[in-house]
């Protein structure tokens, strides 16, 4: 625990409480306080933290890190604490009963031969190539959430855009989960297995550039695989970054229509600092109206790593949708499959407010861009 405190500079904490003040979870959950967790860690209350069910309530959205005057790396601190708790036998209260975590653990079986490329039949893809498209868990999300959202459309649209720009991306038949969710819920052992399997496959594909449509994959590949991919010089980028650079170089154009607003996913925004690329793309598709909470101040979609989903998460989602609707836009764009699922899930179920207040179209950036391609 001392090591974690040292690595994340938690000992700089001056107990000012700005983290708790800015925390979207602490606003609704009186038992959760980021400041108290740091304080308890500093006084060496290891068992107390491990057994605390609120340890898993943190969304690791880094809203607090942006405010912290002592620059404590809070999300990494929580990650370290969770690993410590996991190693002592405590686990998170997973949504979907841990179904997604089971899928991810099954992915760590070395000889697994998946059947996940059904969606790519009508598109141009290859086994090896300069550009690799890292699909992430989209085929599984399609299995699970097809009742109210179609996540696989994101993959289809991404490849469609790449094809349109003359790129035939490689896709991996046996791609594993990037391990993000397991890493953030403390299971770093399985994460290491997944990371090794994925990096081997990425290296074999001969790609010099990896494109993802999921900010979580992006963060994991970029930062958490860093030591495994470092020597290869492979460039990892989000689809919005690629589209934005294609717009500048190749003259890829979009048909303009409608008013849109943009929800920053935490992994893309606060974790990686990518704010402008998705906005450039949206501005070329239509008019962009910002919500009050945007960029580094962006609210959260309410669930992280499939670890917690409770009434408060729903409240956060509904609040975000009300905010989006009040901008007068007709579409809410996000660039994270999970944000999309969570926000759509909120309206799919019963909500505590009138339907008209949250009645806004929610779309993924890649899907919207795929539809708006000019000359298609």
């Amino acid at each position: 625990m001392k090591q974690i405190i040292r690595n994340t500079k938690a000992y700089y904490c001056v107990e000012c409480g700005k983290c708790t003040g800015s925390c979207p979870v602490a606003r609704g959950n009186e038992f959760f306080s980021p400041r108290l967790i740091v304080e308890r860690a500093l006084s060496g209350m290891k068992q107390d933290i491990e057994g605390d069910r609120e340890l898993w309530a943190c969304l690791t959205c880094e809203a607090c890190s942006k405010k912290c005057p002592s620059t404590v790396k809070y999300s990494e601190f929580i990650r370290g604490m969770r690993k410590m708790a996991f190693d002592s036998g405590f686990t998170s209260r997973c949504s979907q009963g841990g179904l997604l975590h089971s899928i991810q653990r099954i992915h760590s079986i070395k000889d697994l031969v998946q059947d996940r490329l059904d969606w790519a039949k009508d598109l141009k893809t290859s086994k090896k190539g300069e550009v690799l498209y890292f699909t992430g868990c989209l085929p599984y999300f399609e299995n699970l959430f097809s009742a109210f959202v179609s996540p696989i459309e994101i993959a289809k649209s991404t490849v469609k855009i790449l094809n349109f720009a003359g790129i035939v991306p490689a896709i991996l038949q046996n791609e594993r989960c990037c391990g993000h969710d397991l890493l953030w819920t403390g299971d770093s052992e399985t994460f290491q297995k997944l990371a090794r399997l994925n990096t081997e496959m990425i290296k074999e594909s001969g790609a010099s550039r990896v494109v993802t449509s999921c900010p979580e994959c992006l963060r994991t590949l970029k930062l958490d695989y860093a030591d495994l991919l470092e020597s290869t010089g492979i460039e990892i980028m989000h689809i919005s970054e690629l589209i934005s650079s294609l717009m500048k170089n190749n003259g890829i154009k979009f048909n303009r229509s409608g008013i849109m607003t943009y929800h920053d996913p935490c992994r893309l925004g606060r974790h990686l600092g990518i704010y402008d690329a998705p906005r450039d793309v949206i501005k070329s598709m239509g008019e962009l109206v910002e919500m009050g909470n945007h960029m580094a101040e962006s609210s959260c979609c309410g669930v992280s790593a499939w670890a917690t989903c409770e009434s408060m998460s729903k409240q956060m989602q509904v609040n975000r949708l009300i905010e989006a609707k009040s901008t007068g836009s007709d579409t809410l764009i996000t660039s994270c499959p999970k944000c999309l699922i969570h926000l759509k899930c909120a309206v799919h179920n019963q909500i505590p407010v009138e339907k008209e207040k949250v009645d806004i179209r929610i779309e993924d950036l890649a899907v919207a861009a795929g539809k708006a391609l000019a000359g298609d």
Partner: protein
Amino acid sequence: MTEFDPRIIAFCCNWCSYVGADLAGTSRLQYPHNVRIIRTMCSGQVFPSYILKALELGADGVMIAGCHIGDCHYVSGNKKAEERFRMLLGIMKTLGLDARRIRLEWISASEGVKFANTIKEFAREIKELGPRNGGKE
């Protein structure tokens, strides 16, 4: 090399299938020892995550058994089970695991013979399929 001895988990509902298994026992019907029965109140409470968890932890086959459609003690639990099972088949396909490793059966309290036969057939099928993931981790 020893013969492959599959591990099968069977979730049996309290009102029909578990009693069916009980009847198979009291009637002294023989069926393979590979099956581990877990009693649940209803087949509708067996979440898809239970099945994947079992597979994750090394089960070679998983069965859900409940009352016949229309006979559910809680009116429609088995219909939920059926719907969930369909979703699970999709996940199994994407994962590349053989769909025959999971099974949904309706076994009533009087069908001890059916229970024994189902287990026999299932165990034989899993033996043919071999261990999940070829026995390697």
